[in-house]
């Protein structure tokens, strides 16, 4: 099939639709407004559910409700709106309800601005809401991945009964790129033995996170940790780019990884052996992939559109074996390939 | 001919059934049930008309009415 030139945000919608999305719930916020606008047309035309909610709180809780019945639902927003969705995310993690939440990040803190940013890393991978839980976090870096990863994220959410977040950024969301819409429309889905679909011919089910009896909540947390361990083992993903002989390895995700790749090409043209490990999943973090290349002679550089968040996980992964530097800009500022190249040169000295 | 039965061990002795009974034929037991309450009992079965007011007011759904 011929490729089609679309924005990352539209590719994301198409990925969700191909995955058999039953419902989209959203609230307007820049820079993800294409998503609810596109979905309002598509979902209604397909006879599926679309609700422009009264708030991000409500939208996320609508996802909770729909997914509790085994349906496929998603919501999208940008940073300030994602803060409001944390309540439902904590509940969904505790109640083990799958669902897909998209954050097309913008500058923060507070209302910030509407430029692309990567300052919500901590929020996405370290919790965000209350309690001892994890989201599965993907970081697409191009429109094609916005399509493919979104498509896949519904299966992964359901496989682990865990919410999945797509941590995108305003640039990947807004950028137009050719996309190969190569996925088959999903029409059949595994039966869910846990969902609420009416107690016909079976005992009633309840889905809850309130577990008051002695020791029950602790056991639930231990069970969740077991699941997280399995996810760590199965799902950590990274793209490796010219790392085999690299003396300087950049760790970068989303739009920063695209910028960094150009800098690596330029560095190689100048005879500097640079490479990149690009986390495709931010949680689970591709610790093993990084650990494998951590050697005393190798220098790591975390490049992010914030003032240093993922760099902490890179440090934990290299565990003192390699040096770890950081390059980033905040508040919607964008690191250029030249900035990255200069940093590589500086590290080479 | 009518009567009620009270699930002794679920009754919390709130007395709303006693208050609701138009024939005043329910009262508290002398004994205490296993959750610590003087439960409701039908004292005068011959007066019971099976109106179900006690059932309507029972917050613990522990009354059954026969007629």
């Amino acid at each position, binding site marked *: 099939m011929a490729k089609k030139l679309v924005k990352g945000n539209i590719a994301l919608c198409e990925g969700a639709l191909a995955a058999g999305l039953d419902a989209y719930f959203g609230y307007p916020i820049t820079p993800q407004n294409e998503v609810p606008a596109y979905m309002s047309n598509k979902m209604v035309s397909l006879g599926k559910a679309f609700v422009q909610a009264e708030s991000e*709180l409500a939208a996320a809780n609508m996802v909770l409700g729909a997914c509790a019945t085994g349906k496929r639902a998603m919501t999208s927003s940008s940073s300030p709106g994602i803060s409001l969705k944390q309540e439902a995310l904590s509940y969904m993690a505790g109640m083990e309800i799958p669902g897909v939440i998209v954050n097309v990040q913008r500058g923060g803190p507070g209302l910030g601005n509407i430029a692309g940013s990567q300052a919500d890393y901590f929020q996405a991978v370290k919790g965000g809401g209350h309690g001892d839980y994890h989201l599965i976090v993907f970081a697409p870096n191009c429109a094609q991945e916005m399509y493919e990863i979104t498509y896949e994220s519904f299966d992964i959410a359901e496989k682990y009964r865990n919410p999945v977040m797509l941590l995108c950024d305003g640039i990947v969301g807004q950028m137009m790129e050719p996309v190969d819409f190569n996925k088959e429309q999903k029409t059949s889905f595994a039966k869910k033995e846990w969902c609420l679909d009416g107690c016909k011919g079976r005992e009633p089910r309840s889905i809850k996170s*309130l577990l008051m009896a002695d020791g029950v909540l602790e056991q639930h947390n231990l069970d969740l940790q077991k699941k997280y361990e399995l996810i760590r083992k199965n799902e950590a993903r990274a793209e490796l780019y010219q790392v085999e002989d690299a003396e300087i390895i950049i760790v970068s995700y989303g739009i920063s990884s695209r910028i960094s790749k150009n800098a690596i090409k330029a560095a190689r043209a100048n005879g500097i052996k640079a490479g990149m490990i690009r986390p495709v999943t931010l949680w689970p973090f591709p610790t093993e992939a990084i650990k494998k290349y951590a050697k005393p002679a190798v220098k790591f550089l975390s490049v992010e559109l914030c003032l240093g968040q993922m760099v902490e996980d890179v440090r934990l992964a290299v565990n003192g074996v390699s040096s770890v530097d950081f390059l980033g800009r905040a508040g919607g500022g964008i690191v250029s390939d030249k900035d990255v190249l200069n940093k590589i040169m500086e590290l080479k000295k | 001919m009518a009567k009620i039965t009270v699930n002794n061990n679920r009754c919390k002795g*709130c007395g709303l059934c006693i208050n609701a009974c138009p024939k005043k034929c329910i009262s508290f037991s002398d004994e205490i049930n296993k959750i610590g309450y003087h439960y409701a009992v039908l004292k005068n079965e011959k007066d019971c008309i099976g109106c179900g007011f006690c059932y309507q007011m029972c917050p613990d759904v522990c009354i059954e009415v*026969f007629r």
Partner: protein
Amino acid sequence: MNKILSKPESLKDNPLSYCPGCGHGIIHRLIAEAVDELGIREKTIAVAPVGCAVFAYDYFNFDTTEAPHGRPPAVATGIKRTNPDKIVFTYQGDGDLAAIGTAETIHCANRGENITVIFVNNANYGMTGGQMAPTTLIGQVTETTPFGRDPLREGYPVKVSELLANLEGTKYIERVTVFDAPHVIQAKKAIKKAFQNQVEGNGYSFIEVISHCPVDWGKTPLEAVKWVEEVFLKTFPLGVIKDTTK
């Protein structure tokens, strides 16, 4: 003699954990009877609130889910929009529905979601020990209004039924009470109608149940029901507030 009244099938056998004399148990039973009588138990999905009725899933004998505090209308919207063939209701207290969940309540009603809302108004936060609720009466002493609710300091009791009646999306709104048996029977009729409306696709139905909370009110059960009749209902008069389904 035949058994003419007993626990409905839609209630589980679990003992209710509410305080002695609490109105929740009566209201649970009325819902269960309505669900039984309409033959919809196997397609009903309940949304439990945060508050005293958070354990509703231990008592209702059909599918139930929890929702964050105030969000049952949003959760119910998500369920109903993706499962229009199911019967979906929320069971919410005054804090859940009229304070933290005001936005969700109003917009769910305004969208005219085809769901049923059972709103239990007992003029205080029961679960947390009797603090002021949005519906606390003027002058009423609670944990957090030790001098009585003063409108200059704490505002006025929110009349949610009247508020919602102004929205075109709402189809049936009635305020009922459970302080005595005849009113319980009337409350049952209203609750059943609210479910019947959903079965028939009539849209959003809202039943406000004025209920008693003896323990947190510092009253005996008998004093509590008397207080409902003599005081509570003066601020919250009973009756059909809106019905466009006729």
